């Protein structure tokens, strides 16, 4: 027999009211924990994917859209840029490295990216099965792509025009062949189909003006398509280029230089990601404010329950004193009750928050891209737990003082 047991018995004696208070508190805490987990993981993902990319160059349009489409592969590309412009920029002395990309097609909702070998190298991706693509019409697919589509090394498939699932026509006459599958890297590569830029050009060859060699894939052992810009005819286009600066000065001069050109636009991932967080931040703040409100209501509800219980229990408290309990013990008893409810509410809330984070992927295609997990625990959650216990202590304080001050003689003398 101890205070903990007696507190628990009192909580069990009013199951509905205490359950309700626990659930309300848990809901408020779950939302806060979810926001914490989601924004932490989103930030981590954005940073991981944008790491080492100083500048994205594409055609004119929204810089945010350019970043979202080129780095995170969520939005649509702004348009194409001419190969000659790209070539000129790649030779610029302040540019250390460029990763060219040709976008436009997808397979079962996964984007087909025409690029070169520096793109997977940039993310330190590794091959799980098979080998990297080498020639036109060869692809290496991400782990998620392999998992979702069931494609294996050696399988053939046709891409479809556009970027959604089942949109646009299939390029049925051009079959890609899978040469390799990447290991999961936790980056955007997991959801991509990588091939040569030449493949993308090949698939989109204008049939009306085709010449005799247009449909012949390049098959060489050392195709220059694997590093650097491929040789292309007049009028060939790329979608974007990911650029690494050669020196810090480039950060100041290069974007200005590029944006001054009429056909090109440069966008900084760091700036746009920060802007994205500012925009998201407003929504997050609103939801956060609402969840704090829920917690305040829960705290109030716990307070009222304890306060009412105090009135019902004044005989019990007086009898405990008659049996030898000190005033401090009665104070502790009521405090313990508030703390236990707060503890149960916050543990349940943290659990619920993790379940919400884990299940967000099932809400839809866009959410699935985010790939949140409920299985990480953050230091901030200890802070939330501590805060909730503090709230429990605060709500129990006034009733506990009431218990401490109970005039036992007056209560017992009243009989009943």
């Amino acid at each position: 027999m101890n205070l903990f047991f007696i507190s628990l018995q009192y909580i069990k004696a009013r199951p509905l009211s205490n359950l309700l208070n626990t659930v309300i508190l848990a809901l408020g805490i779950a939302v806060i924990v979810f926001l914490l987990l989601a924004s932490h993981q989103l930030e981590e993902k954005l940073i991981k994917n944008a790491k080492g990319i100083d500048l994205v160059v594409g055609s004119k349009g929204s810089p945010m859209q350019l970043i979202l489409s080129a780095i995170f592969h969520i939005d649509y590309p702004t348009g194409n840029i001419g190969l000659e412009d790209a070539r000129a920029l790649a030779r610029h002395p302040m540019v250390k490295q460029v990763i060219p990309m040709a976008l436009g097609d997808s397979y079962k909702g996964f984007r087909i990216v025409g690029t070169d070998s520096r793109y997977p190298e940039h993310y330190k991706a590794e091959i799980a099965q098979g080998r990297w693509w080498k020639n036109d019409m060869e692809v290496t697919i991400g782990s998620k792509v392999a998992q979702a589509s069931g494609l294996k090394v050696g399988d053939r498939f046709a891409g479809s025009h556009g970027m959604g699932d089942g949109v646009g026509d299939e390029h049925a006459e051009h079959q890609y062949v899978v040469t390799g599958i990447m290991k999961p890297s936790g980056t955007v590569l997991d959801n991509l189909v990588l091939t040569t830029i030449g493949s993308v050009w090949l698939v989109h060859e204008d049939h009306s003006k085709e010449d005799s060699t247009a449909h012949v894939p390049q098959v060489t052992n050392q195709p220059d398509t694997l590093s650097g810009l491929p040789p292309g005819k007049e009028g060939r286009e790329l979608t974007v280029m990911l650029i690494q600066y050669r020196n810090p000065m480039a950060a100041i001069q290069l974007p200005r230089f590029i944006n001054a050109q009429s056909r090109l636009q440069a966008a900084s991932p760091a700036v746009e990601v920060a802007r994205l967080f500012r925009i998201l931040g407003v929504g997050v703040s609103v939801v956060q404010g609402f969840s704090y409100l829920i917690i305040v209501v829960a705290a109030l509800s716990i307070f009222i329950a304890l306060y009412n219980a105090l009135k019902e229990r004044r005989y019990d408290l007086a009898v405990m004193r008659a049996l030898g309990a000190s005033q401090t013990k009665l104070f502790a008893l009521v405090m313990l009750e508030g703390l236990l409810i707060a503890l149960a509410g916050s543990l349940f809330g943290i659990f619920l928050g993790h379940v919400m984070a884990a299940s967000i992927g099932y809400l839809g295609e866009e959410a699935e891209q985010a790939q949140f997990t409920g299985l990480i625990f953050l230091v901030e959650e200890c802070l939330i737990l501590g805060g909730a216990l503090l709230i429990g202590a605060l709500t129990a304080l006034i009733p506990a003082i009431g218990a401490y001050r109970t005039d036992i003689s007056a209560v017992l003398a009243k009989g009943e």
Partner: protein
Amino acid sequence: MIDTTELSIEFAGGRKLTFAPWQLTQGEVSLLIGGSGSGKTTLIHLLAGLRQSSSGNITIAGANLAHMPKAQADRFRGRYIGLIFQQPHLLASLTVTQNLLAAQYFAGLPANSKRIAEVIAELNLSHRADAFPHQMSQGEQQRAAIARAMLNQPRVILADEPTASLDDDNCQAVANLLLLQAARYKATLVIATHDGRLKNLIPKHRCL
């Protein structure tokens, strides 16, 4: 066992009660008789240390209860004084056995289930050991309250109108139990009452 000098207590309204000195030896049994408002309950509460007197000394089992700090008085009461009220006042969310465990816990004594089983058996409640108070009859609840008062083998048992809400049969039974238990543990027993039925059973009494 109980030794008081003249005790006085002042109430909030300015009303003042004084009690003449009173001595009771170990094992002595006495009724405390008086009309309502005469201060029976007040005196019982003073003797139990449930409230503080304005002046005077109360010596129980050799300790001066009137001058003890509150927490110490609480502990002393739990250990040496058994209290019985008109209503059983069992802790509603605990079973009979748990109520008795709580009595040991609050008195600062180690849990002793053997002693609990013994007391429950003495008061013929063994079949109700795991019952909650609301599942028991009034008589059973009062027996459980007596069991709780006896549990820690107190030197002094103070009962405040223990039979007022009981019928004749239960009144007789409770009175007999109190006398029997007090005799078994050689405890000094004071019963505050205006119940005429008890006067026939206990000759010695003190009027307020």
